[in-house]
């Protein structure tokens, strides 16, 4: 998921902080009280104004994403542990990981009665990928044959060296997508990719009714979908800057059947008032906690909170174009910085246990995760070694000490606390000066990173789009990848990723991905910091709520009383 989304996700999650996972009581029905489930109760949930119209392929931030995920159903869905299960797909088959045959279930319809067939998917995906439609999630289709043609852009560089790109597709549809009959969808990829089908539950791959393709903008205000919920009113129920109301879709048949009558997302600009609303039972569930409640939410909401590890991690990226971090000295410096960070203590004290110190570039909830990838020793806290490595680097090339080491971060969303803590680690253990370079908005940092003009260290985060190791490595660290803003490039790493993608089995692929991580640990383009645990709290109106593999609340599973 792109960082714009992450920013919010991280902001949210950071603000959210979770409780000590080990001692969080976890959700459960309060012992002894019999609370009958009311299947028609409408619950209210914390959210914020979605950034874009609610088109699945254009929604890449959490607040729009959570609505879209309830309004639509894709070929697959994810269970709470991130395991994909077939939803609209009857079967997904391949023999060579390059040619895929997907059988679409018969009789599925949108809530307006329009039938969902293989052609629906072909049209929706072509719409999403075509560069003139400017859909944020178009890059999710990059492995399908014909994507380079539909996504083509012409880049022009003006006199000031600013590059602007204009969409210039050379084809309107992807040649690798064919609806053989109403129920059969044939997909040809540019190259074999063993984990391709894992991503079919992501919102970019949701089907769209024909009305959406005709007038996307109007449709995005009042989307008609096929998911467990639908908009509460036919005329639309998105009150901008206030709320979105969804009600149960009575005709929905699938793995995510709603256990409540509806969800009303109330928009808050600040988690503080939401927290008091929760305490007063005016709001039913929230996944964003104010940072000053991190130490108290387990006692404020006894038996009404849950904390669970999610597929979201944080790294501290070190731009390769910063002259202090180049060559052999730069390598030693990166190792020194990594050894100087006391991840355990920060996770415990600053995050109150809502983070788990990172053991790899991939969070533990992802299948294939290995805690002992060779080279991962660099993540251990060892101040003596850090000091020694820094001294060695100084001997090669003295650090330009005129300016302190800066860590760029947006200061909203509870990031400042840990950035300060990491700066203090650097100061105390390496004897250097370090401080935060504050920005008001994450987007400001991102703009500088995109143009390679941010020489500071920068915080970065990644929330998994779909549960696959590749999703944590490819888009972030591969040469010229979409979110590789610091332009890290290592041909050997790229080769191992490709080999992983093209291997026949998931195990084989994951072995290659872990090998690729060894290279990351050697080069340290970013220092893995910690993986997130997501804390949620709920009101007395809710019996139980839980989060999915990616930390999003499974609203349809919420039982209310």
């Amino acid at each position, binding site marked *: 998921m792109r960082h714009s989304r992450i920013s919010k996700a991280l902001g949210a999650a950071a603000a959210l902080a979770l409780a000590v996972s080990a001692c969080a009581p976890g959700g459960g029905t309060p012992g002894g009280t019999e609370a009958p489930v009311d299947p028609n109760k409408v619950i209210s949930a914390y959210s914020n104004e979605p950034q874009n119209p609610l088109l699945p392929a254009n929604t890449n931030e959490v607040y729009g994403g959570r609505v879209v995920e309830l309004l639509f159903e894709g070929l697959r869905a994810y269970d709470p542990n991130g395991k994909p299960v077939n939803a609209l797909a009857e079967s997904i088959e391949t023999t060579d990981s390059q040619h895929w045959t997907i059988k679409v279930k018969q009789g599925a319809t949108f809530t307006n009665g329009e039938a969902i067939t293989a052609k629906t998917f072909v049209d929706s995906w072509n719409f999403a990928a075509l560069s003139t439609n400017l859909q944020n999630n178009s890059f999710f289709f990059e492995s399908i044959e014909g994507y380079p043609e539909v996504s083509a852009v012409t880049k022009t560089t003006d006199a000031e060296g600013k590059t602007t790109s204009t969409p210039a597709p050379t084809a309107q549809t992807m040649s690798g997508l064919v609806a053989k009959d109403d129920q059969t969808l044939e997909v040809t990829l540019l190259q074999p990719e063993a984990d391709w089908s894992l991503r079919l539950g992501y919102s970019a791959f949701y089907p769209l009714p024909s009305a959406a393709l005709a007038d996307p903008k109007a449709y995005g205000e009042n989307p008609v979908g096929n998911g467990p919920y639908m908009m509460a009113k036919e005329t639309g129920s998105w009150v901008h800057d206030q709320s979105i109301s969804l009600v149960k879709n009575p005709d929905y048949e699938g793995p995510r059947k709603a256990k409540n009558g509806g969800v009303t997302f109330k928009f808050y600009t600040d988690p503080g008032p939401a927290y008091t609303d929760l305490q007063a039972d005016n709001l039913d569930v929230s996944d964003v906690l104010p940072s000053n409640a991190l*130490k108290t939410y387990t006692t404020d909401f006894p038996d009404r909170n849950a904390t669970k590890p999610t597929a979201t991690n944080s790294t501290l990226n070190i731009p390769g174009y910063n002259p202090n971090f180049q060559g052999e000295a730069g390598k030693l410096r990166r190792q020194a910085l990594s050894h100087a960070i006391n991840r355990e203590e920060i996770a415990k004290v600053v995050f109150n246990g809502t983070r788990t110190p990172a053991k790899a570039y991939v969070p533990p909830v992802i299948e294939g995760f290995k805690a002992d990838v060779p080279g991962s020793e660099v993540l251990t806290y060892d101040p003596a070694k850090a000091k020694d490595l820094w001294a060695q680097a100084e001997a090669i090339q003295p650090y330009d000490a005129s300016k302190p080491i800066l860590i760029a971060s947006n200061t909203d969303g509870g990031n400042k606390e840990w950035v300060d803590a990491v700066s203090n680690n650097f100061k*105390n253990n390496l004897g250097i000066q370090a401080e935060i370079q504050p920005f008001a908005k994450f987007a400001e940092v991102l703009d500088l990173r995109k143009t390679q003009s941010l020489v500071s260290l920068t915080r970065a985060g990644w929330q998994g789009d779909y549960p696959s190791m590749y999703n944590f490595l490819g888009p972030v660290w591969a040469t010229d990848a979409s979110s590789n803003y610091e332009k890290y490039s290592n041909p050997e790493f790229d080769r191992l990723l490709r080999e992983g993608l093209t291997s026949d089995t998931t195990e084989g692929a994951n072995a290659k991905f872990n090998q690729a991580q060894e290279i990351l640990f050697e080069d340290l383009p970013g220092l893995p910091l910690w993986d997130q645990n997501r804390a949620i709290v709920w009101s007395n109106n809710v019996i139980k709520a839980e989060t999915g593999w990616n930390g999003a609340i499974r609203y349809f599973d919420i039982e209310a009383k």
Partner: protein
Amino acid sequence: MKPERTEGHYVAPLEETALEATDTLRVEEAPLSLWADAWRKLRRRPLFIVSSIMILALIFIALFPGVFTQVPPNNECLLANSEAGPREGHPFGFTFQGCDLFSRVIHGTQASLSVGILAVLCVLVIGVTFGALAGYYGGWLDAVLARLGDIFFALPLILGALVITQLPFFRENKSVWTVVVVIAMLAWPQMARITRGAVIEVRNADFVTAARSLGVSRFGALMRHVLPNALAPVIVLATLELGVFIVTEATLSFLGIGVPESVMSWGHDIAAAQVSIRTNPMILIYPSIALSLCVLSFIMLGDALRDALDPKSRER
């Protein structure tokens, strides 16, 4: 409420004062100027004494923080001490990041006072210059300067500061000086207005006319006779604004757009303490008290000065 403007010079009623008394010149005693008179009033006022002692103490702390604490405010912050309570050598306990709170509060004095004093000096220079010129010369100069002042006066201080500090130049060169410049840019019109009013009041006084008729140039009369006699309200306002600017600095730092992180500021500490408000509110309270005391002492001094320098309000 200002009383109706009264004549600056009058003859006492006959029944009150014997004519001889008004005509007699007491030569054995030096004549009391407004300032000397004010000083005589001031030094007996408890408000003035208390506020002066507090300000002197604050200035001493700002100049010599090492006398009060040997602990560095920004280094040696250990997370292990996070939010820990007071113990020997650390009378206020520790911040969220495990820094010594007492040391941070002590070292924060410097930023607050220097921003406050420097900003007031800048405001005095700009405001008094513009106000005096506008009030003394009048005409088109007055119109231009007054409108210019109105433009800046219409910008709310915090809102204007938010915008200006986002300009690339200010963002990249964050320091005590950028805060001073931002405050001075936005706060000078009030000073200019007060000065203008005071100068207009004085410029037609008899002694100015007298000086002019004796051959003093127009500008010379402004500098030697008008300005010194118009300064009283300016000084009072400057003292009051000092307190206001200290709050402004803390506010800007609280919002993350004030002085850089490496400069200790109560605003930073108050912002950082928000995380601890539910667990250890003392971390918030200590820097807040320091800020309040500092501002209070300047406001008290301003009040005392006003009472002493404004003869009209004095006796009431």
